């Protein structure tokens, strides 16, 4: 198990390298550069700026320098947020985004799995139909619809939670954005859990557990639920990717100082180093979550224990 984990971690590095390389060149292919603004700069100034940031060097040399900086943990300077390095920008925004994203995934698991289980146990009952209808709605409605709606209803009218803002991650400020972000994930996990549990409940080993005369509760929690959670665990990777992209919208809607905006602004401004920094961080995050999902697999089903 440990050697498997180590090998998987080692496998993350080449993947990350490919992501970095591809994105480095793809951004450069996009037309325009960091110093092409509405007011055109005098060519001499632009040339000076580009020389200062090393953008006048051949592309391959720039790529080499970027990699060399990266292995030392240096993401380089931001081209647009003058006086800030990319590392500083990410260090400011990432904790907020991480807090938001991880809370959303956690909430989705804590709510989605029980809801899906309940729906499966009451298959074809009003409870089941109710949960699944809301789930379809949750998947269909994007964050930029539910977010403002929640802000309007729970913030403005009911005044339960603040409409926007962060206040150093105070709980009240966290609720609406996390719920907005988690809602589609809750819905998806509930559907996955329901379908998978219904299947497991028809398997032979569950019949054996029932033949033992165990209470239904124990049959489900001890014998059926664990194998039923395998698809949910596989979904953790994609869920993280979803939460990351979803956080761009949610952070904007609720005015949160997260790092999502850097990705969008960086891309629009052709702030090459900032975009690259965000890609490296989010890429590593997704890979890590996928790795965790794989390791969880082995815990859920001993037959998948790798060696």
């Amino acid at each position, binding site marked *: 198990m440990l050697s498997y984990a180590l090998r998987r971690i080692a496998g993350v590095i080449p993947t990350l390298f490919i992501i970095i390389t591809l994105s480095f060149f793809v951004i450069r292919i996009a037309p325009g550069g960091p110093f092409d603004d509405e007011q055109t700069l005098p060519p001499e100034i632009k040339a000076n700026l580009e020389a200062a940031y090393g953008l006048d060097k051949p592309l391959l040399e720039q790529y080499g320098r970027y990699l060399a900086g990266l292995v030392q943990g240096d993401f380089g300077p931001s081209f647009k947020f003058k006086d800030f390095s990319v590392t500083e920008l990410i260090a400011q925004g990432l904790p907020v985004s991480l807090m938001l994203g991880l809370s959303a995934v956690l909430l989705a698991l804590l709510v989605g799995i029980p809801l899906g289980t309940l729906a499966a146990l009451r298959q074809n009952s009003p409870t089941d139909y109710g949960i699944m209808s809301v789930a379809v709605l949750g998947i269909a409605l994007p964050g930029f619809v539910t977010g403002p709606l929640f802000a309007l209803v729970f913030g403005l009218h009911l005044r339960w939670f603040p409409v926007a803002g962060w206040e150093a991650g105070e709980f009240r400020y966290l609720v609406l954005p996390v719920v907005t972000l988690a809602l589609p994930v809750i819905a998806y996990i509930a559907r996955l859990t329901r379908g998978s549990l219904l299947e497991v409940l028809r398997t*032979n*080993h569950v019949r054996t557990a029932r*033949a*033992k*005369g*165990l209470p*239904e509760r124990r049959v489900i929690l001890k*014998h059926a639920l664990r*194998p039923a959670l395998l698809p949910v665990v596989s979904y953790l990777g994609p869920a993280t990717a979803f939460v990351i992209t979803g956080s761009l919208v949610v952070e904007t809607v609720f005015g949160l100082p997260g790092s999502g905006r850097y990705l969008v602004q960086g891309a629009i401004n052709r702030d090459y180093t900032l975009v690259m920094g965000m890609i490296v961080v989010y890429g590593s995050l997704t890979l890590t979550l996928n790795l965790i999902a794989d390791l969880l697999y082995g815990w859920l089903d*001993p037959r998948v224990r790798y060696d």
Partner: protein
Amino acid sequence: MSQSEAPIALDIDQLSVVFDTPDGSLSAVNDFSLAIRRGECVGVVGESGAGKSQSFLAVMGLLAANARVSGQARLGTEPLIDRDVAELNRFRGVKLSMIFQDPMTSLTPHMTVGEQIAESIIHHLGSSAEAARARALALLEQVQVTDAPRRLDQYPHELSGGMRQRVMIAIALACDPEVLIADEPTTALDVTIQAQILSLLATLKRERGMAMALITHDLGVVAGIADRVAVMYAGRVVELGTVHEVLKAPKHPYTAALLASMPRIDDSGTGPLPAIGGQPPNPRRLPAGCAFGPRCAKADALCRTDRPPLVGPGPGEGTRSVACHHPLQGTHHSREM
């Protein structure tokens, strides 16, 4: 037989099972009656779809949700049909146990063998975890699992098929049941392991005085360990008697045909093995008369219109019941069927 005075452990009375399907209802078991005494093993034989497993799954309360059950089954004096799950769980796994036919998929993959045996001991007998583990170990040794102490902490996928079936048996025996239902316990296993498992079951039955129902399609298995045999066809018992009587001199043409289609060791080995012509009837549209009629050489007009009831033995006729208008009279079965 010495068992004939022993108290009845499991009494199945006019049990019927109907499945509601999108294509209409399907009658799987019809008026199945069978009493099994303590210390007795009754073999239940028949082709696939004859209703063998469904009858006993009904007794265990393990049928699919679209099944409707009528009739009754009693464990001692306790009725088992139409009880709610919580009540049924006072008997299931304690006094009434079942072994399933597919050891490869019938164990929970993420629990160790020890946990799976100990769990019902802890739940039903209230033992401590240590006591239950000790008993699980003893059970594994009793069902002749090699290297038992190590097996306790292994997962099912680390065990061979024969080992897993022994673990299934250990689970079924965990709380010392009065009745054991073995549903094709050896079908998935190779022949040498089959023989070992069967002799193990025979020993356990004898030592513990259990009542046992052995569901199988293999008459050789029945001949090996059963005291009596019930032959099922299209959801009904067509012949019931001691193994010796039924296998030596079958009275129902279906039983005779089944026996004739078995390979025999003293056969010359030339010529094809006799097979029963035709197909088992569609359980959605059972014939009006004898269900075996369309495949039976002796069938006449009466067989096509009137279903023969299962008639018990008259005085001095042994223990045999048979459901046939024209029972065979010969003392040895022939291969003409």
